[in-house]
């Protein structure tokens, strides 16, 4: 385990309510009650790329709708690249990668991972086709390929809309994926987590727009960057402060550092997006900042959860409080 994670258990750090953390808290030789997730860096990377893909395809559809070819091209390609990467990460993290297809044996609403798999199964090809459509101009005007060349943009638009339609689900289901565990700091965060992920998905996608699209076409991306960053920062803030003891892991160690950096980059990126609207370089930089912020957010959230699972304090204390309150409730006259 990491030293950062252990720090979480020191009394000084007991945070909001040290009294409860100390008094009467017992454990079995300080060992964790929960098993920390066995997931490695692939999973936060998957969360990030999935969000990036989702946001990009939304932006692409918008660009398509409002006639911003450059932005459309950039975001469609980014979407394909990101969804490809996220699929790779998802498979690479499996204990038995060769058995990835077993995911497709069943469709289980109680399993966010199963739901996600099917979302990915729809989104992936759609986003892919949309991206391939960008190759249309490169094709010869005549012959079979010419026919394809004329058909592609239409198909691209259609599949682009489809992808954009599925995208929000792709961006937010991963929040449920984390929250639907016994990991205290993930589960307790379930009301906010989807907004964090949704926000950072939009922000990172707009980042792509700012990076790749000319100033003339990146207006929506700027607005979206501000909205997305705002969502992300606001929701993260509630997670880092609003959950009592189980907020603690998000404020400490590696998780804390990453989330603080993410917040700074988001704010900077959003600001840059607004202020740098006439400067290609500033726009590009703020775009990069937003993308980095999104990645750091996912890794920070992931670390925080793992830390909360590794220290029995985060498992025992809230459950003890729950029991005490229940007991008190029983005795209080109604």
């Amino acid at each position, binding site marked *: 385990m990491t030293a950062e994670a252990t720090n979480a258990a020191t009394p000084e750090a007991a945070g909001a309510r040290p009294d409860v953390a100390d008094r*009467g808290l017992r454990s079995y030789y300080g060992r964790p009650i929960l098993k*920390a997730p*066995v997931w490695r860096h692939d999973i936060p990377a998957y969360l990030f790329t999935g969000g990036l893909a989702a946001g990009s395809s939304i932006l692409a559809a918008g660009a398509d709708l409002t006639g911003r070819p450059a932005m459309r091209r950039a975001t469609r390609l980014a979407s394909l690249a990101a969804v490809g990467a996220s699929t790779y990460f998802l498979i690479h993290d499996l204990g038995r*990668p060769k058995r990835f297809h077993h*995911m497709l044996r069943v469709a289980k609403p*109680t399993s966010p*991972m199963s739901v996600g798999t099917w979302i990915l199964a729809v989104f992936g090809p759609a986003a892919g086709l949309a991206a391939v459509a960008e190759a249309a101009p490169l094709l010869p005007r005549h012959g079979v390929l010419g026919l394809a060349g004329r058909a592609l943009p239409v198909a691209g638009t259609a599949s682009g809309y489809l992808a954009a339609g599925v995208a929000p689900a792709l961006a937010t289901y991963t929040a449920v994926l984390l929250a639907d565990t016994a990991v205290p700091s993930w589960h307790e965060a379930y009301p906010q987590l989807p*907004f964090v992920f*949704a926000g950072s998905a939009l922000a990172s996608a707009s980042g792509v727009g700012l990076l790749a699209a000319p100033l003339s076409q990146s207006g929506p991306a700027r607005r979206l960057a501000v*909205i997305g960053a705002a969502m992300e920062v606001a929701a993260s803030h509630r997670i880092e402060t609003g959950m009592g003891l189980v907020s603690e892991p998000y404020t400490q160690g590696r998780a804390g550092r990453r989330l603080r950096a993410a917040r700074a980059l988001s704010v900077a990126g959003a600001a840059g997006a607004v202020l740098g609207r006439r400067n290609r370089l500033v726009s590009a930089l703020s775009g990069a900042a937003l993308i980095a912020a999104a990645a750091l957010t996912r890794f920070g959230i992931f670390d925080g959860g793992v830390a909360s699972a590794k220290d029995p304090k985060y498992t025992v204390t809230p459950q003890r409080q729950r029991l005490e309150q229940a007991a008190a409730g029983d005795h209080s006259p109604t």
Partner: protein
Amino acid sequence: MVGENSLYGPLDPALDAGYADAPARMGFFTDTSICIGCKACEVACKEWNLVPDHGLSLLGMSFDNTGALTANSWRHVAFIEQPIPAGQRQSPPFRDTPTGPSSEPATAALAATTAIDTGTIPGADPGGEPESAARMAAGPAMLGMPTSGLPGRQQGREDRKDLRWLMMSDVCKHCTHAACLDVCPTGALFRTEFGTVVVQQDICNGCGYCIPACPYGVIDQRKGDGRAWKCTLCYDRIGDGLTPACAQACPTQSIQYGPLDELRERAEGRVADLRAAGQTTARLYGHDPNDGVGGDGAFFLLLDEPEVYGLPPDPVVTTRDLPDMWKRAGFAALTMLAAAAVAFVGRSA
């Protein structure tokens, strides 16, 4: 599939899983008050289920050198040496002997750092660092900061008057609402006709989702194998009317196997007897169909708070909140679309 109480509350799991005429739900009642800590259950389980050894490592956790339930240990006997207020026994063992303060906090502090490569991921992770382990081990009796000095060197605590040595054979709880089963994306985890929860090793693809989902930290991934492993309640034995290996091997009937209803009845009686005999700290754990996981298929009689044995005091199946989670995700999704719309419409306005 989502019927009444399918995600939370009292339920007959086999029925809910679609078994038309399922046999009685089978389970374990582990009575820790008569456990002698012989670990025959650990060995019998490994012998029958061909579970790999967990490796040679002296953990310094009393006589516990297994550490935790892992992919390579499906039964785990916990040992807790406890200085407790006098009067628990008919006569305190150390009355009038020149004892100093307990070594429990300091040994726990060291034990917290004895990680062991169990051949599983994450393995029996040390978890809490020494200071917190020491504080936790000192327990409610002790307020303020513990010392993590040499055992026997702490000052200021009253001498040991009485000592308890708790032993408890832990195992998969086979929850009524099993989070591991709910979140499994491949269907590898399934509910048997006996109401137990089993991993189909030919299906599991090692996605690892079940592991953080378990509120008890039971199921675990085996290193080099990649799949998730845990107690099957000897599905291959009970199908033939045999007793699970651990219960078969238990010399004092601390581990009792049978129809869950009978076991629950027996357990209630046992607790009453113990309380009557002055064992005021005796309590059942995991027997209540109205608890956070709808009751455990494997429940326990404990002599102290659950967390002392490394059990969560009030576990709740995470999927209880799943509908809410999807709702929140839905809101967030719509917000995304709205935001996008605003972003694009904004310009044309």
